[in-house]
């Protein structure tokens, strides 16, 4: 790029440095539909409009009320009484002229029920402040479009909820926070071996000796070690220490004192590259074995799976068990000339690997009856360069999550036992009151059931009629019914005192028997999953009365926008858990703004 920078590159400079022009292109061709434009929805969309999406359409059935002026920045006092969708659309458009906005003045639930085709024209549907029953329907609708990804976001008092739903999130240009360089010192290829062997360190002058790249030093040390140990590399920790010592022993000395040579310092630090065994990351191993790249690979498969199939063929063939080489090396102490020569050795190997993968791609495409050039060389290069970081996360549908037949009761029970905070930390460390993030998930679903039965949320004023003050309802009065609903959520998941697995208990609302079912409404039982639904949390959820605080909405709007960007750019891993088998699985996020913790649940 020349010094003349176009205005868009300037405007987006700080984000282009993260996801590059490729990611930006994906963002700029993304059409988003937002359901409900209260603060949670408005803030989510604000962050995405700033980033430069193609277009947005807001669906909202409300008029701007006084309440909006207390929690939503994207309405104005002069717009009281106007359609909220219209007002928010207009104010959002001011943020970025290159984004086109439109709105539909309609209650989203009505649209879901009456006009499912509406959702076909979007890449991403962001549903905010909606209930489980409607979300389950919308999830099915979005999946049926074959295009629209669904993001569900909710701010409820001091609790936040976020879940994505789509068949697969496939990540190509992953940007891991930290990664080991792909050096292959444990499995060097012939050209690299020859390059390393071409150095005669013993006769080199001091300057060359101190500027020989550490890769060369380590490969020579490894070669010497192999000769002395029957072809083996260091295995035990004693051997590893001895190997490191042998590297240090190669330093040049003056009067018996080792000289200051930075390249040898680096070599000692990078010695693990030699004795660490090469492994394809388990997540990638899982992909290579995925049926989607094997027996289920078809003419209409996503190019991702074609590439994975080609990579698999490479690993089994030319790669001899390795993925294509990435081809870049970190900076290291060396002369310019030696460094560039080493760089070329790596680059050329990467180019050969890419060419081999390309041949597999062309062959597979031919076999599938697709044009051999339907995947570009640039794309293949991209996949090869990021081969170690390819990921695919599959999302269960909301119906699967909520239906008694398929609910993951065990995972939920584990979450309820685990307490709050990421990775099981947080709550306990803080000495804060017991606050279980898994319980908050149950209580949010219980609040929906409460709503289905009473027409309002626990602790919320009877109707959202103007003038209904906060004090008209005593939140404590709603605790018993909320508890009962929570116990029913648990029993539908196969937990709780009285598991109820009848086939008629449906995916959604679960109204039947809410008031009457014997035993389902028992108190909390310490030591069981139900015990996590404690009085403090019940009281807090009722106290919040489904309030949509601006700060919580702004937090969730930020998280939702991050998640949308990940789904759209396909460069980052979305919210997920990694199982013991190192398979990333989609997760449901609970934000606990009381304890300032977040928890990802596998449900």
């Amino acid at each position, binding site marked *: 790029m020349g010094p003349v920078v176009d205005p868009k590159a300037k405007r987006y400079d700080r984000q282009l440095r993260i996801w590059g022009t490729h990611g930006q292109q994906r963002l700029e061709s993304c059409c988003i539909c937002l359901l409900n434009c209260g603060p949670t929805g408005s803030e989510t969309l604000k962050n995405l409009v700033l980033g430069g999406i193609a277009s947005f359409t807001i669906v909202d059935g409300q008029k701007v009320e006084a309440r909006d002026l207390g929690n939503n920045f994207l309405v104005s006092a002069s717009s009281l009484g106007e359609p909220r969708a219209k007002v928010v659309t207009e104010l959002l458009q001011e943020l970025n002229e290159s984004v086109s906005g439109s709105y539909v003045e309609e209650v989203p639930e009505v649209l879901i029920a009456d006009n499912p085709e509406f959702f076909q024209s979007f890449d991403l549907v962001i549903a905010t402040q909606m209930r489980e029953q409607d979300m389950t329907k919308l999830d099915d609708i979005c999946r049926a479009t074959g295009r629209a990804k669904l993001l569900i976001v909710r701010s409820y008092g001091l609790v936040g909820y976020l879940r994505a739903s789509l068949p697969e999130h496939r990540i190509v240009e992953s940007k891991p926070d930290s990664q080991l360089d792909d050096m292959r010192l444990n499995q060097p290829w012939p050209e690299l071996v020859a390059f390393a062997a071409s150095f005669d360190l013993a006769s080199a002058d001091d300057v060359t000796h101190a500027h020989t790249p550490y890769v060369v030093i380590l490969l020579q040390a490894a070669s010497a070690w192999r000769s002395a140990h029957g072809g083996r590399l260091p295995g035990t920790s004693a051997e590893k220490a001895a190997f490191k010592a042998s590297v240090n022993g190669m330093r040049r000395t003056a009067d018996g004192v080792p000289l200051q040579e930075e390249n040898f310092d680096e070599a000692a630090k990078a010695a693990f590259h030699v004795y660490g065994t090469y492994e394809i990351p388990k997540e990638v191993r899982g992909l290579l074995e995925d049926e989607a790249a094997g027996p289920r690979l078809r003419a209409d498969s996503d190019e991702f799976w074609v590439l994975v199939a080609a990579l698999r063929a490479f690993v089994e063939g030319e790669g001899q068990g390795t993925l294509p080489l990435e081809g870049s090396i970190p900076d290291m*102490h060396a002369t310019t000339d030696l460094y560039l020569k080493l760089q070329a050795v790596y680059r050329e190997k990467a180019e050969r690997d890419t060419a081999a993968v390309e041949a597999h791609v062309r062959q597979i495409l031919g076999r599938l009856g697709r044009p051999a050039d339907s995947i570009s060389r640039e794309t293949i290069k991209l996949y090869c360069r990021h081969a170690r970081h390819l990921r695919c996360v599959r999302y269960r549908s909301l119906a699967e999550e909520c239906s008694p037949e398929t609910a993951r009761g065990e995972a939920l029970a584990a979450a309820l036992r685990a307490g709050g905070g990421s990775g099981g930390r947080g709550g306990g460390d803080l000495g804060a009151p017991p606050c279980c993030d898994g319980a908050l998930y149950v209580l949010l679903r219980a609040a929906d059931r409460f709503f289905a039965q009473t027409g309002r949320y626990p602790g919320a004023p009877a109707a959202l009629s103007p003038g209904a003050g906060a004090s008209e309802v005593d939140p404590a009065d709603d605790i018993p019914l909320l508890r009962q609903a929570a116990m029913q959520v648990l029993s539908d998941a196969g937990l709780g005192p009285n598991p109820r697995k009848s086939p008629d208990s449906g995916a959604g609302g679960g109204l039947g028997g809410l008031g009457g079912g014997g035993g389902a409404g028992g108190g909390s039982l310490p030591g069981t999953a139900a015990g996590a639904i404690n009085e403090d949390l019940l009281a807090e959820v009722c106290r919040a009365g489904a309030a949509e605080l601006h700060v919580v909405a702004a937090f969730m709007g930020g998280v939702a926008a991050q998640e949308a960007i990940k789904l759209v750019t396909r460069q980052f891993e979305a919210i997920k858990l990694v199982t013991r088998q190192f398979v990333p699985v989609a997760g449901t996020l609970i934000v606990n703004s009381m304890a300032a913790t977040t928890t990802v649940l596998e449900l």
Partner: protein
Amino acid sequence: MDDAERWRDLDLLLTRAGRLVGPGFEPGPELREFLQSPDCRVLCVGAGGLGCEILKDLALSGVVHIDVIDMDTIDVSNLNRQFLFRMKDVGQPKATVAAERINARVPGVKVTPVFGRIEDQPADWYRSFSLIILGLDSLEARRYMNSVVCGFLEYDDEGQPDQSTIKPMVDGGTEGFKGHARVILPGFTPCFECTLWLFPPQTKFPLCTLAETPRSPAHCIEYAHLILWGQVRPGEEFDTDNEEHMKWVYERAAERAKQYGIQGVTFQLTQGVVKNIIPAIASTNAIISAQCVLEALKTLTCFSTGLDNYMMYVGSSGLYSLTTKYDKDPACPVCSPGVPLDVDPDATLQQFIDQLLADPSLGKHLSAPSVSYGSTNLYAHGIFEADTRPNLSRRMGDLVADDGAVLTVNDKRLRGPMRVKVRYGSAMRA
């Protein structure tokens, strides 16, 4: 407009009793009245990516009296996240425009802008706020603000923080998809100086690499920026905001890269390296600012349990956050009730002062320290210098009899007193 209806959501949590609340939470309409009163003044330091969000979040959390300070003007590259600014505002002061936009949008709120440097404001101005929120991107500015709020802190005779001197501060920071929010209650939670290790030092290229063995595009850029500029344009100060300067560095770097056969010098990279640009996106700023203002609201009203005391947020790969209770550094030169220091009772006061100046942790905060013990000046610069000078040759054990006594050290480099706890150790007992 009906105020009760407008603040309905907030009032639910401010007026109802709760189970998971801060100490001394007293629900009632008084809390919102307090937030809206002139008794509750909040300062937002910075009107950039975090600052814009913080101001909006404060205004929509019921706070009315807000000040914002920022010395920067608006740049095109701000517009991908600093949502209060438009293309037509480029070149205008951030603080002024941000305040205007909030005041115009949120009825009743009064944001007062200061277009200037934080160092130019008097201590009493900072003291006048109920709480300070930092939306900064530099460690140096954070350390400055930290020294300001810790400078207000006083300890009682038992070494307990005097509650009335605690100025709560909330800090946020972001980089790409990651960020942190933390609450600093000086004397109770660690201050910046206590946890400086959280900010790893920047890696700098050795000059000899730049001059003799460039290997990467960044090496070529830094050569043009740090070495060539001074040689070719001596006496001219390099200005990162001057387009011609940046273009010059880019072109020289590109020439050098070509000469050495190095690929990848671009104008964008040149700017990134020279300005040390930190990637920034709207969503992360929104998350971190919201957490900061939520914690501010908790600190001001106790309506919910507060963050104790640091939250890290990582959104780049999945979502990971960690809430950690960091510990204070008992030897923190800025907030400790008494930094323990082993002193020889036979040393003179002058030797003690020399020991302070030579101390690796304390010395860098001092240039010409004055020392007092309780209300007694042991040695003081200024008008008491002549009176106290004879003490310099006196024995520490005679000037300060008690082992474990806390001496107060003042210095023009400090914005508050440094407290040093004298430990005579075995020498005294002998």
